[in-house]
């Protein structure tokens, strides 16, 4: 009996298939099997949001999704945010507003912010703070992140 499952999925607009163990998390599959190390492991229990990816249109903590659940789904990770022409406006705004220090939380914040701004182009500061409550940053104090998201909202 095979010990691994063959998963066919789409990641960042491309067909991808990989072999994973039944209880391997999507985060582990992305990082260790597929080689996309942009999504970070922080707490590995759904508190910090560093592993946030977009899973069929909803942001999720990829540490709380099993790799086998990616079958037939559409996944977006931080590696799929920029285009060949350049950085995404949110990425640009994070740079211009110095919205990162150590950078571990940044991929999660950007993937989460992108989902917000695509659904709600002009959110209030309070809405941004609530939306990003599942993403922890231990460096910036959040103000610069919130300002960057508001800045990006004006440019998308």
């Amino acid at each position: 009996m095979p010990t691994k499952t063959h998963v066919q999925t789409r990641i960042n607009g491309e067909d991808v298939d990989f072999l994973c163990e039944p209880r391997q998390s999507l985060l582990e599959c992305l990082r260790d099997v597929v080689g996309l190390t942009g999504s970070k492991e922080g707490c590995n229990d759904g508190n910090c949001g560093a592993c946030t990816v977009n899973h069929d249109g909803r942001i999720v903590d990829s540490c709380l999704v099993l790799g086998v659940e990616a079958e037939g789904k559409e996944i977006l990770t931080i590696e799929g945010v920029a285009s060949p022409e350049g950085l995404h406006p949110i990425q640009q705004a994070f740079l211009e507003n110095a919205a990162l220090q150590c950078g571990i939380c940044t991929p999660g914040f950007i993937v989460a912010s992108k989902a917000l701004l695509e659904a709600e182009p002009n959110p209030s500061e309070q809405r941004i703070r609530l939306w990003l409550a599942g993403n922890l940053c231990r460096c910036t104090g959040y103000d610069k992140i919130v300002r960057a998201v508001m800045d990006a909202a004006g440019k998308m």
Partner: protein
Amino acid sequence: MAGGTDLIVLLRVNPERVNSPELIVDIKEIPELNELSYSATGGLTLGAAVPCYKIYQNPEVAKAYPGLIDAASLIGGIQIQGRASIGGNLCNSTPSADSIPAMIAHNVMCKIAGPNGTREVAVENFCTGPSQNVLESNELLVSLHFPPSPDNFGARYIRFIPRNEMDIAVAGAGVSVVLDNGTLKSARVALASVAPTPLLVNKISEALAGQPANEATVQEAGKLAKEAASPITDMRGTVEYRKHLCDVLTRRALAAAITRAKGGTVDAD
């Protein structure tokens, strides 16, 4: 496994808590467990695997079951709400589960399937202790049935946490009322995090029926909630603090439920 937001963590850090399963079945593709159907006469049937965001995105459901919406909107962050289900919150059966007092307030009935067919259990009788419930090892929670909300009905769930969001309730209160011309026809109050299970305070229902929906009645409910609570002291709060919170939260939730029953709106936390 529905959303897996509790189960996957437990499998990693404390598999004994979930009986170290050899096999895990993903139930998210089973149609009956994904039902989300509402009618004004039939009420709401909420499949056990329906994630939180689908509930608060539904305007009809939001209008009819405001206490459920309060709870579904504050469980975890947006990432968790994209996966976590109310059925899973119930089956995890922690005393601090935000959705359970709200469901008790809404008079929810649980549909459970097993090898001998289905059975129904009132939600206030579902949990039997911390992380324990009435489910046998060969049974499955299928759906939650919310009866139609009567006229002049209002409900509210609030909790206290040291942060603004993403935390476990130090205490919580779920309340529903039915008004009849300024009088409370009925009231239900359930408390989170202050007993081994989510706690329906029957004494409040008995004391409040027929009373005027005024400040004195609200004060009385708070006092009874404080008396009914039997919390423990732990890292989140002391016995005294939690009992005090039961008084404050019950009064606030009851006042808000009355406001909603009159057609008013209440401020978000």
